[in-house]
């Protein structure tokens, strides 16, 4: 390292992912030791290393803590309604097929109120990268029970512990037809970034679940210590098992978290199926929507 003295101004370095963020909105609203920022860093790093034209990349969030991600990313970004990020993103993709659309939202948003859209977008193999940050709880509203809260874990609406079975989200995505399914924790920075890179270059419904600490609510309600303690827990209890049978990916309370890439296959997307089918059936009469979209202009 150079020890040469440089003027302070010249030494000011930009954060490597600053060009991907709306720096005029920083500082963000996330709590200290929240995992969402780490996930955003990994996503932006993958975008930076990707060959994608950023002008053609759009991001859609729903509502909640992770629902704020779209608001910080310097892309065409939409902060939609609670649970409806996937159908909103579906409209964007179909309205202008050349777009690369990422959905970035939380477990409650995507698998609770938006669960129906999740399964149908996967069934259609809609060309979307769906990033689900799972903190096991509805955090923005104060720690209520989620469809992901592990059995026995406390939440503000299950103060005596949760007795509902949570979703196994990678299994849900895989059985509905996702072409790429992975799970990491926010400790797995390098592996998560690689997963984003792979998924960004694939087509179809791609799903990445990231388990993250919520020190403010989940951890406090369950006396799990600080966010750092949870990162240590991930370190000790995350088990990487690529290609694992997705039926075995349930997450029990403070038990091991199986991570890895479980599905990576190719299947025709909704638009590819549509184009192929109509070309076969209608021949020359079929006019596909141009990549630029179906807008009319002068």
């Amino acid at each position: 390292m150079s020890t040469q003295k440089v003027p302070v101004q010249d030494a000011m370095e930009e954060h490597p992912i600053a060009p991907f963020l709306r720096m005029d909105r920083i500082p963000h609203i996330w709590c200290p030791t929240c995992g969402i920022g780490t996930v955003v860093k990994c996503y932006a790093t993958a975008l930076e290393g990707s060959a994608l034209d950023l002008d053609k990349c759009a991001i859609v969030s729903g509502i909640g803590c992770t629902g704020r991600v779209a608001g910080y990313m310097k892309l065409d970004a939409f902060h939609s309604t609670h649970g409806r990020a996937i159908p909103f993103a579906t409209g964007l993709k179909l309205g202008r097929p050349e777009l690369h659309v990422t959905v970035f939202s939380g477990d409650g948003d995507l698998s609770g109120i938006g669960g129906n859209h999740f399964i149908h977008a996967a069934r259609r193999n809609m060309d979307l990268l769906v990033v689900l940050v799972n903190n096991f709880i509805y955090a923005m509203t104060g720690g209520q029970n989620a469809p992901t809260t592990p059995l026995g874990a406390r939440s503000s609406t299950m103060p005596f512990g949760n007795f509902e079975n949570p979703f196994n989200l990678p299994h849900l995505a895989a059985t509905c037809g996702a072409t790429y399914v992975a799970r990491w924790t926010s400790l797995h920075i390098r592996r998560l970034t690689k997963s984003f890179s792979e998924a960004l270059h694939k087509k179809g419904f791609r799903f990445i679940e990231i388990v993250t600490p919520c020190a403010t609510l989940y951890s406090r309600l369950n006396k799990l210590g600080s966010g750092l303690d949870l990162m240590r827990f991930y370190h000790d209890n995350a088990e990487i098992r690529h290609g694992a049978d997705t039926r075995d990916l349930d997450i029990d309370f403070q038990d091991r978290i199986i991570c890895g890439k479980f599905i990576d296959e190719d299947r025709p997307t909704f638009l590819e199926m549509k184009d192929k089918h109509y070309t076969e059936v209608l021949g020359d009469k079929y006019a596909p929507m141009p990549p630029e979209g179906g807008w009319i202009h002068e």
Partner: protein
Amino acid sequence: MKTDSAGVLAGVHYLDGDYACGEGAMAAGCRFVAGYPITPSTEVVERISQRFPMMSGTFIQMEDELASMAAVVGASWTGTKSMTVTSGPGFSLMMENIGLAAMMETPCVVVNVQRGGPSTGLPTMVGQGDMMQARWGSHGDYELISMCPQSPQEAFDLTIDAFNLSERYRVPVMFMMDECVGHMTEKVVIPPAEEIDVVPRTLTDKPPGEFMPYKLNGGKVPEFARAGDGYKFHSTGLTHDERGYPDMSVECQEVNVRHLIDKIRLNVDDIIRVEFEQVDDAEVVVVAYGITARVARMGIDMARSKGVKVGFMRLVVVWPFPERHIAELAGSIGAFVVPEINYGQISLEVERCAGGKCATVHVPHGGGGVHDPKAICDAIVGAAR
């Protein structure tokens, strides 16, 4: 500008209102439709799904109406003209994302072929009970535009106007058909493309660094950039400043909401469309819309034959409400008579705008059928007394 000929089935046709509405959408340049099947609206999307593959249009049958409306808002942000189609129960499910469209200032058209309600109500039979829902159905304060066709020809013509108004004011337009108009088959003349004026999506000419998606524009709607052109803008359902960034201040809320209200209220003369018949010497004026307008004419003819001086005011655009027109008439007549297939929605608006200067007589109908013209005639005669 003139429309794209690919969507125009020029000629003289025999169509029902639902098909005519679908043809109107395609003629207007609509190229994205998301919908969920619901009687009595489904024929609109059936027509569109039959013809869209030949004109670069995409129809997708979504998993529910929440998804349909959300997809329409998303698609509209690509500049592609977008529409969804539903009836009462589905309209209820769309409300949250209609509010999103209003807040994000997203042009789109929502067709509601009204049936009897509440709840599942009368799936195959007529109602006009969603008129207040069209205006107030999503939470919070906003203004939007609603239109009511009275015939298949108008279902075609006004659908084009609905798209044009939605583009001009960047609002969702509620196209409030009813089951009778939707399922009524009549002659529909579709003009050639070169006779159809459409408002294209106007894109900002500012470069990305200078563009702000919600910058107030001297009373006009903000300039628009579509997703995928390098603007990297942000749009949110949260209260937002001119950059599209959330701002939870009382001051920003005032500016934000006030703009959504003003862009319609300050332009009511451009938006409102009403038709008058025989009001010059009238002692009583009937106010009606949709199928009830046609039934009301029979009641008016019956009352005229009894010597009552009765005129007619038809609401083509129902929201924003023609407050000034009602108030002006109220000073010179004895009563308004308002038949509608509900238990008092638009009649209350008429009464409000009449401001006590004349009587307002409501002629209710619970739905499932149209009024007996004699009931309207009786109300006119009674009001004239």
